[in-house]
């Protein structure tokens, strides 16, 4: 028994190391080759250059796609967070018939195959006679991002003690003043976190954008289109690196904000114990 545990504990770090290598090495290759002074992604490296990054600035198509992504990302994060706030508040605050069912249905897109969702949305959009545009991408991605926003927001709202609002009213504040001075500041970290998570997901969402974007590509759709041309590969790598860094940055901020808010609430459990 003891020797088995010992063997396991020796093998475990190796396994974990391999696991991380397999997971992150390909991603690490992206920034490495994006600085490589060659048009092909082969070793040995040919020397350091930033020209692929510089060339991005001159790429009008890419910049248009980037602006599209930004617009879509902002709209999706605001829309899905707004919808999420309403739903999360209803689900954490009130007990009503069908509460669990509603929650389940909102969370379902998380588990549905994205391509199925994309195809069915495309069918609906076409049947409704709508033009494919950024607006359709925004609507599709909002459905897709809502469960992520919901899970962040319900976690934040569940920690919200209703008596805080009552205390504010009791101390003479109006309902609107209570929302502004208590409710909003206390749930602000969850809302900010939800905005960032939705934006990040929208930024690199491909399938829905590919099906619903029509003639206005978002960045992932643009990247997919460029992969057919070998010469464009280094530029794509540079762009990918920028998106990678941006995503990591945004998610780190979102998680930091969420944890700080969580710590604030941690002591309330004590008082009840």
């Amino acid at each position: 028994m003891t020797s088995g545990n010992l063997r396991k504990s020796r093998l475990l770090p190796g396994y974990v190391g391999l696991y991380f290598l397999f997971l992150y090495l390909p991603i690490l290759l992206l920034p490495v080759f994006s600085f490589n002074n060659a048009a092909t992604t082969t070793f040995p490296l040919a020397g350091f250059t930033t020209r692929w990054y510089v060339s991005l600035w001159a790429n009008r198509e890419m910049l248009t796609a980037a602006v599209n992504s930004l617009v879509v990302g902002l709209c999706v994060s605001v829309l899905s967070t707004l919808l999420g706030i309403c739903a999360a508040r209803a689900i954490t605050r009130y007990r009503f018939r069908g509460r669990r069912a509603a929650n389940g249905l909102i969370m379902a897109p998380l588990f549905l195959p994205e391509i199925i969702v994309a195809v069915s949305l495309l069918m609906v959009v076409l049947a409704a006679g709508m033009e494919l545009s950024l607006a359709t991408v925004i609507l599709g991605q909002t459905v897709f991002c809502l469960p992520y926003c919901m899970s962040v927001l319900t976690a934040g709202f569940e920690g919200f003690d209703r008596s805080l609002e009552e205390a504010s009213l009791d101390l003479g504040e109006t309902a609107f003043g209570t929302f502004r001075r208590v409710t909003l500041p206390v749930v602000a970290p969850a809302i900010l976190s939800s905005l960032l998570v939705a934006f990040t997901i929208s930024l690199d969402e491909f399938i829905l954008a590919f099906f619903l974007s029509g003639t206005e590509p978002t960045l992932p759709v643009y990247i997919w289109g460029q992969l057919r041309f070998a010469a464009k590969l280094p530029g794509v790598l540079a762009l990918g690196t920028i998106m990678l860094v941006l995503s990591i940055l945004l998610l780190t901020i979102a998680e930091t904000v969420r944890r700080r808010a969580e710590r604030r609430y941690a002591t309330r459990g004590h008082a009840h114990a």
Partner: protein
Amino acid sequence: MPETPMIAPMIAIDRVNKFYGIYKALSDVSLDIVAGEFFSLLGPSGCGKTTLLRSIAGFDSPSSGDIRIDGQSAIGVPPNLRPTNMVFQSYAIFPHLNVEENVAYGLKRLKLGADEERRRVGAALDQVRLGHLGKRRGHELSGGQRQRVALARALVLRPKVLLLDEPLSALDKKLREEMQVELRSLQKAVGITFVLVTHDQYEALALSDRIAVMFGGRIAQVATPKEIYQRPRTKLVADFLGGMNFLSGRTIGQTGAGLTVETEKFGTLTLAMPEERIEVGARATLGIRPERLRLLWDDERAPHELTGKVVDRAYFGETTHLSVGVEGLEKPLSMIETNTYGADDLPVGADIRLAYDPDAFVLLADDPPVERVQ
């Protein structure tokens, strides 16, 4: 303390009913609370005491009846416009604000100016001995400190009534006892009417000028702590406040203000007539507190004695609780003896003699059944 105060009450609750669906949370509750009084609403969970407190605060509205605060009807008045402030069970300290900002929260709307505001916040914090912790946040405070912040935050607005919803229940026993003393002296210092909700009978006895005991949405008795303990009106009140030995008897006669009751083992007793008249010849329930029964040692004699056998005992440090079986009584009697003479050494099965005082018995009324609305 008079039963019905002569001066106009600070809070007048007038035939208040509250229904939640088929559940009657408050049933025809009428109550006057005097200005400057420390008043407690005592009862088990679900008895309606919190609903009543929240109705005074404005968070719940009665289905019928009137609540007047300082002479003004509060029906339809939102909580922010009532001259009451509340200390919540969870304290509800705003987590995004520090202690000073929490206390200043309600003052902000009064636009007192920075200097006056700071002075009043400082004074309120000093009053609860938290002057040195003004910059801390809620999560950096202990349970007792959080409670003081909640107190300061409410008192700084100089309300006419301070409402306290089980403010001590989250604290451990030792801290709770300290805070009881502090709460009592704070109330005497500020002179504001305090209304406390609690399920802890000792807390209510120790703190209050008067207590209302509630069961099933009704008020069972309103009286001073001493009166509630010594002269409980009903069986439930007697049972909820400390231990009680219940006996059954039969009324056999009436002499002036007294009622003669015949009992199984305690002979014929003459007791004060309770509020509700009891007919001669009716069955009656009597009670006697465990500490009013006394062990007789060696050849000590008393005018009223019984013999019995110890059937169970529990050691409580300064006292021992004894269960004494007496032949002819359905249930064993419980007794509380101080351990000064060696009650803690009495073995189970020991034959003992006990003395009782016939004046220590109280006649207890039956409680009304809990009502459900269809």
